[in-house]
C-alpha cells in the first residue's frame, strides 16, 4: 500500500527526515513510534501529499505522492495531530461538509462510521469545539473515514485523550483494520506500540527498527533488571554512576537497569545498592518491552554520534 524509498526533508538547518525507507502492505495496522520532533508528522504529511519531499520517492497504492496527488487525496483519510475540524460548526455539519466535498454522503458510507458515530450522535448538534477530547477524536476519525478511504493516516490520535478513550480508540482501529483498511498511526506512547501489527521506531528523522512489536522488543541485546528501593532519586543516580552500568532509566515506579556485562546478577546489584545505603531493595530480571528496545537503540546511536 505504501512504498517509501530514501525520502529526505529538510527545514533550513534541520533535517526532519533522513533517507527514510518504509513499506507497508495492504491491510496492515502499522505504528510509527517516536518522541516529539522525531519526524513522524513530516513523514505523514509527505504520505498524504501535503508536503513535497526534497529527495526520494513515495508511493501510495502505486501512485506517486507528488505527481498523482489528486488521486491520492481520494484514497487517503488523514487525521492531523492537531484537531483540525471547524470548531464553530456542529458535529453533523462538519461530517456532512467533509462528506460532500468528497462527493459522497453520510448515508452512503454509514456502515463504516456507524460504530463510532453512534457514540457522538447524542451531541450531533453541538459545536465541535465544545466536545471533550475523546469525542473530538471520534468526530475527526469519522470525518477522515466518511469518504471510505483505503488508507487511514492518523497522526498521534490519542495524544491528550484520557486512558479509557484511548483503549476504545484502539478497539475501533482494530475493527477498521478487519474491514480491510490499511492504517498507519503514530504515537509517542510506547505501550500503544504492542497494539500494532508492525512498528517502526523513529528518532531524529531516521527509522531505527521496523518489525513486529514482539521482535522489536526481543531484539533487546542485553539482560534487563527492574530495580526499586526506598529512595528512587538516589537509586537512579547511583546506578548511572556505577562502573558496571550500561544504562539506567525510570520505567514507571521501577528503574530499568542494564549492566555492561552479562556477569552481573541480581545478587551483585543488591550488594551494590546495600553498600550505597538503600533499603527495601527489589531486583528482578524482566522481559524487555518496545520502550527498552527504543532506549537501547537511542543510546547506541548517541554513542555512535559521540565517537
Amino acid at each position, binding site marked *: 500500500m505504501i512504498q517509501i524509498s530514501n525520502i529526505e526533508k529538510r527545514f533550513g538547518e534541520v533535517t526532519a527526515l533522513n533517507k527514510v525507507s518504509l513499506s507497508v502492505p495492504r491491510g496492515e495496522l502499522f505504528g510509527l513510534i517516536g518522541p516529539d520532533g522525531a519526524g513522524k508528522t513530516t513523514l505523514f504529511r509527505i504520505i498524504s501529499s501535503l508536503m513535497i519531499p526534497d529527495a526520494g520517492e513515495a508511493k501510495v497504492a502505486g501512485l506517486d505522492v507528488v505527481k498523482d496527488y489528486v488521486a491520492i487525496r481520494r484514497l487517503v483519510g488523514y487525521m*492531523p495531530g492537531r484537531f*483540525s*475540524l471547524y470548531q464553530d460548526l456542529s458535529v453533523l455539519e462538519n461530517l456532512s461538509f467533509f462528506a460532500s*466535498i468528497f*462527493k459522497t454522503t453520510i448515508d452512503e458510507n454509514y456502515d463504516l462510521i456507524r460504530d463510532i458515530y453512534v457514540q457522538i450522535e447524542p451531541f450531533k448538534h453541538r459545536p465541535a469545539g465544545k466536545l471533550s477530547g475523546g469525542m473530538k477524536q471520534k468526530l475527526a476519525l469519522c470525518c477522515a473515514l466518511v469518504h471510505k478511504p483505503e488508507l487511514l493516516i492518523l497522526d498521534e490520535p490519542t495524544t491528550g485523550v484520557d486512558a479509557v478513550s484511548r483503549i476504545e480508540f484502539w478497539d475501533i482501529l482494530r475493527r477498521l483494520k478487519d474491514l480491510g483498511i490499511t492504517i498507519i498511526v503514530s504515537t509517542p506512547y510506547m505501550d500503544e506500540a504492542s497494539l500494532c501489527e508492525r512498528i517502526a521506531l523513529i528518532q531524529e528523522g531516521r527509522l531505527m527498527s521496523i518489525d513486529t512489536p514482539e521482535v522489536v522488543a526481543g531484539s533487546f541485546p542485553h539482560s534487563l533488571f527492574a530495580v526499586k528501593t526506598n529512595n528512587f532519586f538516589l537509586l537512579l543516580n547511583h546506578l548511572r554512576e556505577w562502573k558496571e552500568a550500561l544504562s539506567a532509566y525510570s520505567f514507571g515506579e521501577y528503574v530499568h537497569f542494564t549492566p555492561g556485562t552479562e556477569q552481573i546478577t541480581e545478587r551483585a546489584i543488591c550488594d551494590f545498592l546495600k553498600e550505597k545505603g538503600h533499603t527495601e531493595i527489589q531486583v528482578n530480571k524482566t522481559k524487555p518491552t518496545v520502550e527498552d528496545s527504543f532506549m537501547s537503540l537511542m543510546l547506541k546511536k548517541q554513542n555512535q554520534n559521540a565517537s
Partner: protein
Amino acid sequence: MRTIGYIIQKEFIQIFRDRFMPKIIFAVPLFQLLLLSYAATFEIKQTRIVILDNDRSVESRRLVSLFQGSSFFSSLTDVEGIEEAEKLINTRRVHQILTIPRGFERKMIVEKSVTLQLITDAVDGSAGSIRSAYAQSIIQRYSMLINTRVTGLNITQPIVATWSFWYNPELQYTTFMVPGILVLLVTIIGLFLTGINLVREKEMGTIEQINVTPIKKIQFIAGKLIPFWIIGLVELTFGLILARLVFDVPILGNPAIIYLVAGIYLVLIMGIGLIISTVSDTQQQSMFISWFFLVLFILMSGLFTPAESMPAWAQIFNKINPIAYFIQVIRLVMLKGSGLADVSVQLISLSVYAFASIVIAVHHYKKTV
C-alpha cells in the same frame, strides 16, 4: 461547481454563527455613515468672538450690532482690555478678537479710512480661515453701508458675480462625503474580512484538513471569496438606501453602473486581501498589513482632501490606488449622473487591476503546508 456551493454554504453558516461578524457587517456601515457623514464636516456652526470696542461711539456700536445680529457669531463685548481677551483665546474659550480702535468714528469721517484688528485662532487652519472670512464679510457689509450713508448714494459694487455650484448646489458636505464612505465600506468588507477569514483557517489548523481533500485550489478560493463578494454588494445596497433616504444624497446615474464597478472593485480588493492572507500566519498580522494599505489608499484617494491639489508623485501613486478610481466613479455616477462611457477609463483600469490581483493571489496561494 457543487463543491463551491458546499463551501459557500459552510462559509455563510460560519459567518452568521460568529458572535461578531453579523454585527460588524450591519453595524459598521450604519455607524460609519452616520458618524463620518454628520461629524466629519467642514462647516463651522458657531464662532465666539470678543469685540473690544475702544471707541464706544454710534458708528462702532453699529458695527458691533452687525456681529451680534449674525447667528454665526456669539459675541462678548464686556471684556476688559486686550490682555483678558488674549487669555480667553489662549484657553480656547473664544475663537476671535476684533479690536475697534479709539477714535474709530472720528477717523472714518475725517480721514475717510480706518483700520480694525482681527485676530483669529488658527490652531485648526481650515476652521480659522473660514472664521476669518466670515468676519471679514461682515466688516465688508458694514463698510458698504457706511458708504451709502455718508455719500447718500446707493453705491453698489461695480462688478457682481453670480455663482452656482453644479452637482452639489448647496455645497452639502454629506452629498460629497457619503459616496466616498460607501467606497470605504465595500473596501473594509473586501479587504479585512476576506483576509481574516482565510488566515483563520490557517491559524485554527483547519486548512490542513481541507488540504488533504480533493478540493481544487480555485474551488476553495472561489468558495471563500464569493460569500464576501455577496456581502459586499449587500452592504453597498444598504449604504445606498441610507444615503438616499437619510442623507438625501442624489443618485442621478444608473445604479447598475455602480454595481458593475463595485463588483469588479470587490474582486480586486479581495485579491489583495488574499495576497495579504498568504503572507501572514495570524489574524493579527493580516489585520496590520490590511490597515497599512487601507490608510495609505484612503488618505491618498481624494476622499478627504482633493486629489488634484496633491503633489505630482501622489497623483502618480493614485494611478495604482484602487480606492481613488472607485471614489471617482461613484461620485460621478451618483452626483453627476455619468454614464458608462464617462467612467470607461476607471472601469477598464479597475478591470485590468482586478484581473492582475486575482491571478497573482491564486498563483501565490499554496495548497501544501
